């Protein structure tokens, strides 16, 4: 599948040089674009294809009700600059007041702009999310954003390919998030550097589109250029009727094309990694990168047991930062905050999973829980199902759409020393606020931790 998309988008290829690849969809947000538009202006260059470019405000917008005023003057400036740039260069913008606003990686699929076979880029590393539809999607830097704005093309070396096959059936209580955390735990945060990963196998096929997006989203946390899942009936059903998906007869014709993309059995990959889904348990990270992860039934590891000197020192640093002692049972770790949201786990199905755990329970008195839908569309649909009421009655806060506490570039941040069960994708030092301690988990695990005040095995909670 990767090869087909790659070949179909080659504009030019010369020996010894990176390929010139055509980009079908370019997503733009406020944090990584200002300098790129500036570059265009300086050189007097237009945006080549405004029709293939789409902008949204998500990273540093407040998520409280009503949103305004934005008191952070620098964030406000970034937001205003994006609005001005979009107007000047003729780009569609989903701003704060748009009913379609949301995290860039949530609204692409929401709108039906994300489709199989496309090349998609964005100045954000989690662009890999869109690969769940069988698109080739990856994050780029600001200079490359400028390059795509000006030329609609990107210079790329052909990456190597890796198959990650997850066979078997996912046990009850084990989610897509646990699959990807287990994969990163297994291959490491640089295990897929230089590769495009294609996820295959029974467990991946059985995931919903939301689940596949969660898996592809975190491909970058294993270092991968992109992650992909071959499109199938679930993909087409998800897209049908979305505002920017082809309609009617066009849709049928599109599906016929998309079906041809799917991986041919026996496709050759440069590397294969295999995982047995039936052996997986819910995962919890204990350290300061997503590869530092153990099953919820496990314990905080002992750095002394690490394979290399560098790993041992990294683990020691991580434990010191996280304020954890080796040997502590994960389920004895108490938490102060819970964040349910982000481009990893801020979609309707994620909110449903969290609500299923919170329904009829109360957030523990020592915990503050924040639920932030990934887009306004997700928010509306969740409210139509009454999920907001479930969260509010349980004592959690229900917010407007945005990146929120995933990266602490907006008012939602952790205080130093606060410990958070988070459904986001990065547990780096200071990611959710300076000194904040992040543990990555699935939505139902986060909800379970919220009600218990410490990590618990969600398989036991939902059983009784």
């Amino acid at each position, binding site marked *: 599948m990767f090869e087909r998309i790659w070949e179909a988008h080659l504009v030019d290829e010369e020996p010894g040089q990176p390929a010139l690849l055509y980009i079908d969809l370019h997503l733009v947000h406020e944090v990584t674009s200002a300098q790129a538009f500036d570059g265009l202006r300086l050189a007097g260059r237009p945006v080549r294809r405004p029709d293939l470019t789409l902008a949204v405000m998500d990273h540093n917008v407040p998520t409280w009700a009503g949103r305004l005023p934005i008191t952070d003057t620098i964030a406000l400036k970034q937001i205003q600059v994006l609005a001005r740039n979009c107007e000047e260069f003729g780009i569609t913008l989903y701003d704060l007041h748009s009913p379609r606003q949301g995290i860039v990686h949530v609204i692409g699929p929401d709108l039906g702009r994300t489709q199989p076979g496309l090349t998609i880029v964005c100045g954000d590393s989690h662009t890999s999310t869109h690969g769940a539809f069988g698109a080739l999607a990856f994050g780029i*830097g600001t200079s490359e954003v400028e390059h795509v704005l000006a030329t609609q093309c990107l210079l790329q070396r052909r990456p190597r390919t890796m198959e990650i096959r997850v066979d078997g059936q996912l046990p009850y209580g084990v989610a897509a998030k646990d699959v990807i955390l287990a994969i990163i735990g297994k291959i490491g945060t640089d295990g897929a550097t230089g590769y495009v990963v294609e996820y295959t196998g029974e467990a991946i096929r059985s995931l919903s589109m939301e689940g596949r997006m969660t898996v592809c989203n975190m491909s970058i946390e294993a270092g991968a250029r992109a992650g992909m899942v071959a499109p199938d009936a679930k993909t087409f059903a998800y897209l049908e009727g979305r505002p920017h998906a082809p309609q009617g007869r066009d849709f049928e014709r599109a599906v016929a094309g998309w079906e041809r993309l799917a991986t041919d059995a026996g496709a050759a990959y440069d590397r294969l990694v295999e995982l047995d889904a039936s052996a997986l348990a819910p995962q919890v990270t204990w350290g300061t*990168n997503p590869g530092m992860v153990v099953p919820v039934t496990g314990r905080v590891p002992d750095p002394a047991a690490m394979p290399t000197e560098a790993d041992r020192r990294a683990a020691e640093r991580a434990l010191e930062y996280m304020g954890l002692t080796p040997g502590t049972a994960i389920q004895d770790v108490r938490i102060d905050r819970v964040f349910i949201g982000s481009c990893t786990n801020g979609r309707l199905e994620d909110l449903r999973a969290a609500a299923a755990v919170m329904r009829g329970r109360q957030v523990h008195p020592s915990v503050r829980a924040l639920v932030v839908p990934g887009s306004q569309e997700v928010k509306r649909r969740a409210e139509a199902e009454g999920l907001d009421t479930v969260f509010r009655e349980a004592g959690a806060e229900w917010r407007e759409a945005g990146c929120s506490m995933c990266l602490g570039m907006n008012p939602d941040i952790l205080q130093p020393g606060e410990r958070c069960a988070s459904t986001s994708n990065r547990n780096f030092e200071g990611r959710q606020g300076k000194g904040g301690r992040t543990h990555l988990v699935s939505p139902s695990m986060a909800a379970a931790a919220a009600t218990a005040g410490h990590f618990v095995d969600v398989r036991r909670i939902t059983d009784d």
Partner: protein
Amino acid sequence: MDPFVKHAGTALPLDRVNVDTDQIIPKQFLKRVERTGFGEFLFFDWRYLDSGQPNPEFELNRPGYAGASILIAGRNFGCGSSREHAPWALLDYGFRALIAPSFADIFFNNCFQNGILPVILHESEVAELLARAKAQPGYRLGVDLDRCVVEDEQGFSATFAVDPFRRHCLLHGLDDIGLTLQREEKIRAYEQVVSSR
């Protein structure tokens, strides 16, 4: 972009693996709309104490390393976010070359776009350089892109491989966009083929 042919300067040993871009430039400093001025925030959370004073424990604050322009680090340097603010901050501080056993993809690309040379050396060579730079504050290194060599004045010398296209662009300070726009005809031809499908 400034060309990079060769560079000599003080080497900073940052003996850590998986240094992520959130560490290189924490997100509270991403809100500027310019490319410059990020240097003072480089490694902010490591570099400064809560009081705002420089953290004497952090490598860059130790005597002899201020003004370093070559950074030596452990594997997977620059992992995490795509923020180009990371190379901007390194460049603005004065770093021109980075040496590690491996780099994260997006970060690696971003460096070349900004006239910073990321050099991949073997794990054992990096360990040797780290040891030398730690033992001798103010330790100087030379990085030569023309000859593809890293060397010091004490007999260390290692060659490195670099993508020929990237090398060419860096040696001449060439801007990707200008080069691609010269291929306008090919882009237009591609667009015509696609729209007629």
